[in-house]
Structure formats: C-alpha cells, structure tokens
C-alpha cells in the first residue's frame, strides 16, 4: 500500500486584494495548495509576484480577502489571542532581513528564553540553559559567547542562525522561510540551507521556502511552485520543473539565473 502523506496545511482559492475598488491590487489570485508533513516546498517568483503576501497569509499576519485555509484538516481561526498563540507555536517564520527581525533591547539569552514561554513549558534554570546550549550547538554558535550580546553586535549570518536556533527550540510543525538567505553572502548561505535541511530531517518539519533564486529552490526543495502576478503558473517536483519547464515564465526565470556550464546572454 502506498503511504499517503499527511496534509498539514491546505489552502483553497486564496485571494488577497490590497485596497479596494478600481485602485485595488490583486496580489494573490485563486491560489490552491496542499503542504504535506515533512516536505520542503519552494515558492519562486520575481519581486511583486505575491510570494511574500502568500507567506504572510499562511503565517496569519495578513487576513485573506477570500478563500479558506485548513490547518490540520480544520478551518483555521485566529480570532482569539489564545488561538493565535496556539497557531504560532506550530507555525513559525524566518524573515528576509535579519537586522530588523529582532527586538534590539533583548539579549540573545532572553530572546531564546522567550521560546519556552511561547511553548508554555515550565523548566528549571539548568534545563533551560542545557536546551539553549543544545540549540546553539545545532547552529554552530557558541552560546557562552553570545548570551550577553545584543542582536546588533552580531553579523547577518549569526543573526539568521540565532533565528534558526529559536526555531529549533520552538519545534513548530511548519516553518515559513521568506528569503532567509538574500541578505547574507554566498558562504554563509550554504550553512543556512544545510541547517534548514537538518531541521526538516530531525523534526519532520514542513518548510515553505520563498525565494527568487531558482538555484536555491532547486537545491533545498522537494516541490517547486512558480508564481507570476499572483498566480501559481507551474508546480511540480524540483527535478521536473528545472529539467523540463513547461510555462514560458519558468523558462525565462531559469534563463535569467547565471549558470556555470552554460552561456548567459547578456549581450
């Protein structure tokens, strides 16, 4: 018998319109998706294609104009604070700009301690410390060096890794990674990608990876969605989309990425 993957998050006809009337911008149009447990799905598109809007709706930071979202086969409701809190302990995000995703007044130690609060765990001091240390080892950081530091004392790559350490402590079911590597350089990028894949392996986490770089999407993900002007124009496994693109936009995206073994037409 074929193993049926468990669907964790499902969206039906999701729409988002910014503004209203004639001036309204239809950012996301009739998008359907199903994310199964433990898979990495990439959403690829150029700036303004609606990928971040979609991510924010999945996170529950924006309300969808139209459509239904099902989390664990139940219609998602985020009306009460307790509901939102419960949802966010299971759905977490890493944002594009590590420099603005931290509270500047908190030290790294208190940032990480807050994760236990979100999960509602009551731990002794020693246990907390052990777990935080474990999380820092997971992301190749030295906890004793960092604990008394403020976020602005860290480099971009370090901040992004602290962010992943948070994820490691919270153990969410779904992680939305919105361009987590676009602000950091090529060398630390490999580290971040490997950590995301390790997270998936250890926690069976679903990762929604948003990027404009098809190369990264191909490297990390199982499935790839291509978005253009708010529509998902192509979807499929990473191999098929890269090797046999069908939609003209996908072909264009692939040709726009500079490659090593193929000519790149820049005149």
């Amino acid at each position, binding site marked *: 018998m074929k193993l049926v993957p468990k669907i964790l998050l499902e969206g039906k006809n999701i729409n988002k319109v910014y503004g209203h009337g004639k001036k309204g911008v239809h950012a996301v149009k009739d998008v359907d998706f199903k994310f199964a447990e433990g898979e990495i799905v990439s959403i690829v598109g*150029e*700036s303004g294609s609606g990928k971040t809007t979609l991510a924010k709706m999945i996170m529950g930071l924006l309300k969808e104009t139209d459509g239904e979202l099902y989390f664990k086969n139940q219609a998602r409701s985020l009306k009460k604070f307790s509901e939102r809190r419960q949802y966010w302990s299971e759905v977490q995000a890493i944002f594009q700009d590590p420099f603005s995703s931290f509270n500047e007044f908190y030290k790294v130690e208190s940032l990480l301690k807050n994760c236990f609060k979100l999960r509602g765990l009551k731990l002794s001091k020693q246990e907390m410390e052990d777990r935080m240390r474990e999380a820092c080892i997971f992301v*190749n950081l030295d906890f004793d060096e960092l604990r008394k530091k403020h976020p602005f004392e860290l*480099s*971009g*790559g370090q901040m992004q890794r602290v962010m992943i350490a948070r994820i490691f402590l919270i153990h969410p079911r779904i992680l939305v990674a919105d361009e987590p590597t676009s602000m*950091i*350089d*090529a*060398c*630390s*990028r*490999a*580290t971040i*990608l*490997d950590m995301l894949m390790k997270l998936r392996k250890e926690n069976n986490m679903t990762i929604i990876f948003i990027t*404009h*770089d*098809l*190369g*990264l*999407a*191909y*490297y990390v993900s199982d499935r790839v969605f291509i978005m253009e002007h708010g529509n998902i124009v192509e979807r499929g496994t*990473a*191999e098929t989309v*890269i*090797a046999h693109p069908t939609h003209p936009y996908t072909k*264009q*995206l*692939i040709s*726009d*990425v*500079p*490659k*090593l*073994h*193929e000519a*790149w037409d*820049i*005149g």
Partner: protein
Amino acid sequence: MKLLSVQELKTYYKTRFKEKIVAVDGVSFDLEEGEVLGIAGESGCGKSTLALSLIGLFAMPLCYDSGSIIINGQDITQLDKETRRVNVLGKKIAYIPQAAMNALNPTCRIKNFIFDIMKEHHPQMSKEEVYHLAKERFKDLNLDERVLEAYPNELSGGMKQRTVIAISTIMNPDILVADEPTSALDVSTQKVVMRMLKSLMKKKIVKSMIFITHELPLLYHIADKIMVMYAGQGVEFGTSEEVIFKPLHPYAVELMTSIVVPEVGQKAQKLSSIPGAPPNLKYKIDGCRFAPRCKYVEERCKTGFIDIKYNEERMYRCLLNRKVVDEVGA
C-alpha cells in the same frame, strides 16, 4: 595598456576608541584597458572598503595609510582632497555604491542630478546641451527618456539602479567601480542591469571595470580576471576560468564549492560551509589569515608573513604546495 595599478594599498578605519581596523592590508593588482576585474569574498573581507579607497574618497572614519593608486601614470593618493574630487572622481574613476538605488534624493527629478554634476565639472555647458547629452546617453543605454523627468519614487528598483549607473558614467570615466550593483535585485532585473554594464564596456563609455560581488556565477560571466579577497588581503588572482574551475588557495576552493546554480545534478552535490568566522582585523595577525579555518593547516602556516606565490602565471597566498590544494579541488 595599463590603466590602473594598485600597489601595496593599506587603508584602515579609525574607531572612536582610537583603534585601527585595517580593512585593506597590502592589496596590489593591475587593471588593463578593456578588462573587467571581479573581486570576490565574503562579507567583511574588505571588498567595499577597497572600492572606496580606489576612488580616493578617504572620509572619516576611513583613513589612508600607505601604498599607491596609479591611474594613467598619476598617483592619486598624493593629490590633495579637493583636486582629487574635481579632477579624478567621475572623470577618471567613477563609483556605484552598494545601495545605489537609495542614493537618489527623492525630491529631485532625475535630470537635476545630471545638471548638478555638469554645473560643477563643465560650467560652460548650457542646460539644453546637458539635457540633450543626457537624452542621447539614456537612449544609448536603452533607458526610457521619460525617466529624466521622473522622480526617483516613480521608478522601480532595477530602473533606479540603471539610472544611477547612467548618471555616474555621464562624464565617460576611464574606470567604473561597481560595488554589488545587483545584490538587492531579483534575478530577472539583475540580468537587465548586467546587460547595461556590459553595453557600457561595448560602447566604450568606460574603458575598464571593477566589479565587486559575492555571487560567483555572476562574476564568471562578466569578469575577465578575478581577485579573491580574505580578511583584507588578496589571496588569489587569475582569469575567471582558472579561479572558478581550478582554484588554488584553500579559501577559494571552499568558496567555489558553495556555488548554487539551477543545473541538473546540483541537488546531489554537497554544499560546503567553512567553520568558524574570519579574524578580527583590529588585531595584528601572525601567519596565514585563513589558517584557523583551513582544513590543511600545517605548523608553518601559523607564524610569519605569508607572501604571494607566483606559480605558472597564477598568484596565490598560500604556503602549501600545489599538489595538496589540487587534490582538494578535484
């Protein structure tokens, strides 16, 4: 013809605690006419500081220490600040800053930036002449004329970036220093900007270019030569083909294996990540700067000054014999 020659350039940042952070420490290279030199390296290795130093813009906290920057036979470090600004900047060497698209004043029309530059450098030209010149140049570079009348907020990110490039090369500088001109743009816009940079070279608006980025596949397509920087020093020089496919310095080898491209078979490859962090440039470093992170470190790497080694036309800063590093690359 040698257009630019940089010799043992050393510049540092002065912090408010009177510390010296030597961000560019003894960098030397030559740039021939018609050549594109790529500079690669991770964040904090001194790429952008090198770019700022090259145009001779030593504004606090950046200070000049020693070495020379010779453009067309003239050492610009010896000139005083005012002469440098009037005669060198924009005319001989132009610079596109990293956040070029945020460099435009939002309350000015694009044409006013050009009037402003020309008023300073060619006061005899009338406004009509300047406008005509700007129009011709924008047409040459496939930019819409209406951009001249627009305000910066009416333009998209890629458009702003291209506008800044067009403005900074309006006086036909010999050398263009582009500091990460595409790192904030998405892949499709990136290609448009790269096309424009290439056409600048083709139409001989600029004679040579220095292109700074950490995106190696990009460098491969635009640069003729590549210099890899680590902790303020150049660690490897060579043609782009050599540096990307046959790197010699252990750091360059690691850097090249971190390339991600959408090519079939990439998924099976393991990306490498270098453990540890680059050294703090506040302190004097003894021995090879990459030694603490190097897989092939030997006892002799840890002391003394490591000089550049010349080996079959390749230059790199490493003590290990070539065979060892070759095996890593294979």
